[in-house]
């Protein structure tokens, strides 16, 4: 039983939604879902529904933000008004500013920005429905959208959160687990090197718990990576048929 008196994991190690500790929610990714964008992806993980679109490389506005040696990546993470329990007022808030920033930084790790001096690569993440884990879902979708746009990248970034609830280290908390949980550790890696490119943590974790969360997260990122690649494979073969 957790601090809050709510049982999240039963005696057999099963979670309320029937998952084991190391299991992520069902993930569905579809690449190339939008006509206008240069690249796009739709992703569901559990009850999260996310769209990502890429425009660029294109001219960077305003000009004073241009970098003469490489492209900049400008990600905008946005929760749509009806995506959450209470209506979210349209417009940027502090949370979305922070998430946009760390996702942009993670993507800069893999995109060959040096190929496009002065340009901007614009990544738009829209959360249609939110159920814990939207920043990782958004980054995972954005990576697929970048690949769909044909942007040269060293690797494709998967992301997932691990966390702690009811005293257990668990992968990919859903909303109920997150609300009553004790910690959350969103992360993203470069699959080819296992380097961590996005990492946040809040809550309360001992060293052993945190090490376990990282171990679980890295392993799960590889699973997410396979799903990303599969979506791109389907996209390319669909394109071949067109």
């Amino acid at each position, binding site marked *: 039983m957790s601090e809050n008196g709510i049982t999240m994991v039963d005696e057999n190690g099963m979670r309320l939604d029937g998952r084991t500790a190391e299991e992520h929610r069902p993930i569905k990714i579809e690449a190339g879902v*939008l*006509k*206008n*964008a240069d690249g796009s992806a739709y992703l569901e993980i559990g*009850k999260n*529904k996310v*769209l990502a*679109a890429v*425009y660029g490389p*294109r001219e960077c506005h305003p000009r004073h933000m241009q970098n003469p040696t490489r492209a900049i990546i400008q990600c*905008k993470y*946005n929760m*749509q*008004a*009806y*995506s*959450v*329990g*209470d*209506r979210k007022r*349209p*417009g*940027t808030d502090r949370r979305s500013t922070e998430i946009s920033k760390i996702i942009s930084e993670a993507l800069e790790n893999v995109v060959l920005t040096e190929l496009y001096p002065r340009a901007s690569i*614009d990544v*738009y993440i*829209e959360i*249609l*429905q*939110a*159920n814990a884990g939207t920043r990782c879902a958004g980054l995972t979708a954005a990576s697929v959208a970048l690949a769909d746009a044909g942007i040269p990248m060293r690797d494709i970034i998967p992301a997932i959160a691990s966390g702690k609830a009811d005293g257990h280290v668990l992968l990919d908390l859903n909303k109920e687990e997150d609300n009553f949980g004790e910690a959350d550790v969103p992360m993203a890696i470069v699959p080819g090197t296992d380097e961590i490119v996005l990492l946040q943590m809040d809550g309360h974790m001992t060293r052993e718990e945190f090490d376990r969360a990282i171990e679980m997260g890295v392993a799960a990122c590889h699973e997410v990576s396979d799903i990303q690649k599969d979506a791109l494979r389907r996209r390319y073969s669909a394109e071949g048929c067109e």
Partner: protein
Amino acid sequence: MSNEIISEIRRDHLLNLLAKGERADGRAFDEFRPITVETGFIESADGSARVRMGDTEVIAGLKMIPGTPYPDAPASGVMSTGAELIPLAHASFESGPPSPDAVELARVVDRGIRESKMIDMDDLCIEEGKEVWMCFIDIYAINHDGNLFDASNLAAVAALRTATVPMEQYGKGEDRPLKTTCVPISVTMAKIGNDLIVDPNFDEGHIASCRLTVATDENGDFRAMQKGGSGGITVAELGRCLDMAVEKGREIRDILG
């Protein structure tokens, strides 16, 4: 070749086609693109719909929240409509506060719903003078290939028709369907040269001299109109638009079911 030259060539091509009675995508002048309406897509919303009209795609979601009524209508619910032309939907859309285009879109959709009295506002009173349901209709353009007016109207209307008043969430009893009455259907015509076409796609909208959006009810009565663009329209052309709006409105109403 510069963008302007490409755009000029494309324009001439479209005008030549229209002169022959044809549209670039093969439609008749009074023909809508294929329409699909998917409701209940967003479970976090109290009503939602995704509408595809050719390559144009919009999502509308409804959130209902208890709030305070206006002093001059103490027993009536409140509605508010927003439209976001997010940069995901088109290269020309920018982040930031709503552009004049987004404001106009939201207000035209709002007027259609408000003036047709589609939502039974009296049914949204919780306690007279104290608490009523506030309905927030939020529309997001997902892919913009023209005629966001009709797609947005349709998405909003479909979301409202399948909406649930979230009584339980706010401890007000059992959830119940939102009561709607009239269904306003919006039909948009564009004038290109001397031709009138319905449901203009992006390219057609781009070269049109003006645009007329007409919302009709089940009886073919008019509930809202909005002319856009700097071109003029004669009274005779207006009459033909109104005929078209009534006829096409019926067809779309049938799709809604």
